[in-house]
C-alpha cells in the first residue's frame, strides 16, 4: 500500500522532474484537419501575433472532428480555435459549440480587408443569419483525365456523364482502368455520389428535408454510377482520395472525379509518373461538390475572442493566401483574380469553371450523420448486394426515421 501511493506520487511528479513544459495559461489551442494547405495556414497561425503562443494539432479529419466533438460536448475550455468545413460547422453551431463572429468581423473589417470575401463564400458559413467561420480554402471537385491517352484515341473530354461512362468503358483495360472512382464510406462516397444525384437525379433532399435520393430520377442516377464503376479500378469501394491520387500518379487509371487540391501533385516528380500528362475540365453536366474549410472559435474558450479572431484573420489575410495559392483555391476575390497565379497553376481555369458550375452539400446539420447509413446503402447497391431501388428506399426510410427523431417534419 505504501509502495503504491509513493509510486503514484512519483508518476504525478514526473513531469516536473523531467521538466516537461507545463501548459502555460496563455497558450492557444487549435485543432484541425491535415492536408498541405492547412499545414501552411497552421504555420501562419503560430506566428500570427508575436508573443502569443499558438499550439496547432493537425490530424485526419475524422479524428479531428472526433476529438472536437468529445471536447466540446463536455463544454471543455480547450480547444480555442476549431477547424470547420462547410458541412461539419452546422452540426457544431446547432449544438451551440461555436461563437458567432459578426461583431468581430465588423470590428476588424478594415484592418484585414474582409470585404474581399465574396458573399457567396460567406453564405456557406452562415447559420440563422450569423457568420461562424473564417473561410480559408475553397475546394471543388474537378474532372481529371489523361490528355495523352484521349488524344491518342482521338477523343475529347466527355460533356455528359453518359459520355464519361462510354469513354471510360472504351479505354478500360486490366492494367489501366477506364475510370477512377473513390467510394470509401463515408466522406469519399458522399462526394462522388453528390455529383450523380445533383447532375442526373433530384438531389439529396427536397425543400422540406424529405429524402429525394430515391425518386425515379435519382434511382436512375445511381444506376449510372453503378454502370460507371464497371470500368473502375480494383478496390474502389475502399478507395479514398489518397488511393485515387496514387492510381493516377502510377498510371493505372484514365479519368474520374477528384478534388482540385490534388491537382498540383500530379506534376510532382517525387510523386508522379505522369508529369504533364493530366489535364482537367469542369465535371460533365456540372453540379459536382464544392466545399470549403475554415476556422471557428469555440463558444467555451476562456481566451480573449479578439486575440483569437486576429489569429485566424491573419492566417486568412491576403498575403497569407497568396502564398498558398498553389495548394488550394483561395476564397479571397483579389487572390482568385490574380493573373500571375493563374499562370503558375495549370489547373486554375478548370478549377474555377468547376466551382462556378458546382453545388454545395445540403445545408443540413445532420448531413454527415445521414451520410453514414445512406452511403452504406449506396455501396450495397453498387456492389450488387442489393438492387439500387431497394437499397435507396431503405436508406430513405432510415433517413426519415432519423430526421423525425431529431425534430424535423413537424406539422
Amino acid at each position, binding site marked *: 500500500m505504501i509502495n503504491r501511493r509513493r*509510486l503514484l506520487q512519483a508518476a504525478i511528479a514526473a513531469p516536473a522532474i523531467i521538466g516537461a513544459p507545463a501548459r502555460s495559461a496563455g497558450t492557444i489551442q487549435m485543432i484541425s484537419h491535415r492536408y498541405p494547405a492547412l499545414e501552411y495556414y497552421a504555420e501562419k497561425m503560430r506566428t500570427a501575433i508575436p508573443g502569443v503562443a499558438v499550439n496547432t494539432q493537425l490530424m485526419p479529419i475524422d479524428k479531428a472532428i472526433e476529438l472536437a466533438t468529445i471536447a466540446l460536448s463536455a463544454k471543455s475550455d480547450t480547444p480555442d480555435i476549431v477547424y470547420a468545413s462547410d458541412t461539419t460547422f452546422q452540426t457544431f453551431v446547432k449544438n451551440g459549440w461555436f461563437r458567432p463572429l459578426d461583431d468581430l468581423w465588423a470590428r476588424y473589417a478594415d484592418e484585414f480587408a474582409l470585404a474581399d470575401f465574396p458573399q457567396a463564400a460567406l453564405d456557406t458559413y452562415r447559420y440563422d443569419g450569423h457568420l461562424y467561420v473564417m473561410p480559408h480554402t475553397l475546394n471543388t471537385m474537378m474532372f481529371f483525365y489523361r490528355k495523352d491517352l484521349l488524344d491518342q484515341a482521338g477523343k475529347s473530354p466527355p460533356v455528359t456523364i453518359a459520355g464519361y461512362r462510354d469513354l471510360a468503358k472504351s479505354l478500360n483495360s486490366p492494367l489501366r482502368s477506364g475510370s477512377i472512382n473513390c467510394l470509401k464510406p463515408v466522406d469519399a462516397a458522399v462526394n462522388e455520389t453528390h455529383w450523380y444525384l445533383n447532375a442526373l437525379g433530384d438531389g439529396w433532399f427536397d425543400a422540406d428535408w424529405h429524402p429525394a435520393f430515391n425518386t425515379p430520377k435519382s434511382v436512375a442516377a445511381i444506376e449510372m454510377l453503378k454502370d460507371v464503376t464497371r470500368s473502375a479500378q480494383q478496390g474502389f469501394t475502399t478507395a479514398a482520395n489518397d488511393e485515387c491520387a496514387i492510381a493516377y500518379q502510377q498510371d493505372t487509371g484514365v479519368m474520374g472525379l477528384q478534388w482540385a487540391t490534388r491537382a498540383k501533385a500530379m506534376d510532382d516528380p517525387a510523386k508522379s509518373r505522369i508529369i504533364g500528362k493530366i489535364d482537367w475540365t469542369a465535371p460533365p453536366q456540372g453540379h459536382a461538390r464544392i466545399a470549403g474549410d475554415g476556422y471557428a472559435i469555440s463558444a467555451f474558450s476562456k481566451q480573449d475572442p479578439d486575440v483569437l479572431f486576429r489569429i485566424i484573420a491573419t492566417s486568412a489575410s491576403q498575403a497569407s493566401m497568396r502564398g498558398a495559392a498553389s495548394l488550394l483555391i483561395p476564397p479571397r476575390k483579389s487572390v482568385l483574380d490574380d493573373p500571375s497565379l493563374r499562370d503558375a497553376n495549370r489547373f486554375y481555369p478548370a478549377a474555377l469553371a468547376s466551382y462556378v458550375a458546382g453545388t454545395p452539400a445540403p445545408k443540413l446539420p445532420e448531413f454527415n450523420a445521414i451520410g453514414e447509413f445512406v452511403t452504406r446503402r449506396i455501396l450495397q447497391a453498387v456492389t450488387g448486394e442489393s438492387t439500387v431501388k431497394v437499397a435507396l428506399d431503405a436508406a430513405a426510410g432510415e433517413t426519415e426515421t432519423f430526421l423525425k427523431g431529431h425534430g424535423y417534419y413537424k406539422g
Partner: protein
Amino acid sequence: MRRGRTTQWLLFLALAGFTTINLTPIIWGFLISLKQPVDAFSVPPKLIFNPTFEFHEQVWVEKAFWRFLINSAIISIATVVVSVSAGTMAAYGLSRLSNLTSRGLLFGLLAMRMFPHILLAIPFFLLAKTLGLINTYPALVLALVAVNQPFTIWLMRGFFVDVPHELYEAAEIDGCNAWQVFARVALPVVRPGLWVTALFSLLLAYNEFLFALVLTGPDTKTLPVAIAEYGGEDINYWSLSAAAAIGIMLPIVLFMMALQRHLVRGLALGAVKG
C-alpha cells in the same frame, strides 16, 4: 529430443521461411519509408531504388518525435509500475480466497475486457475532465491501468496459485504477518511471472491509441497519436507514417531482446495454471 540432423534443418528452414513471410508487411513498410512516393507504390514493386532518409529525418528531427517518445516512455513505464504492483497484490489476495468467490470476481473483472474499447473513451474523458486531468500524465496512466487490470490480475493469479500452501503455513508458524508472507514468501516465487506481466502491460500502454487521443494534449502526446496525425491527404504523409512506425518499434524490440530469457520461463511456469 535428439532427431536426425536433416529433420532439424528442414524444420528450421520451414520455420524461418514462415517467419520471413510473416515479416513481409514490416519489411515492406520499412522499404516504403526509404522511398520517394513515386517509387513506393509503383507496379511492379521496386526493389531497386534510390534510398532516401529524408522521411526518417523529418520524423525525428523536424517533427521532433523524440518529445513524444519521452511521453510514451513516461506513460508506459508508469502504467507498468502501477498496474503490475496493484495487480500483483490483488492477485495474491484473490489466490488466497476460496475458489468460488475468486472465480466470480475474476469473471467480473473480465467484463471490462469484453466491452467495446471505444465506448469507454467517453466516460473516461468525462471523468478526467471533471477532475481537471486532461493533458496530464496521470489521466492516461489511470485509464490504462484500469483497462489493463483484468489481464494483469488473471495472469498473476495463475502464478500465485502455484505457490505451495506449505510455504504459507511455514511462514505463519514462524510468526510472519500478512504483508511479510506476501513480500517475503510469495513474491520471490512468482518473480518470472512479473516479467511476463510487465511486458504485456508495456505493450498495451505503449501502443494504445484511442484513450491517448482523448486524454492527452499537446504536452503529453504519445507516439501512436502522433503517428495517426498523418492520415493521408498527401502521399508524403504515408511515407512519414512508415518512417515513424518503424522508428517507434525499436524501443520495444530492444526491450524484448534484453528480457527474452525471463519471458519464456515466466510464461512457462505461471500461465499454465490459467
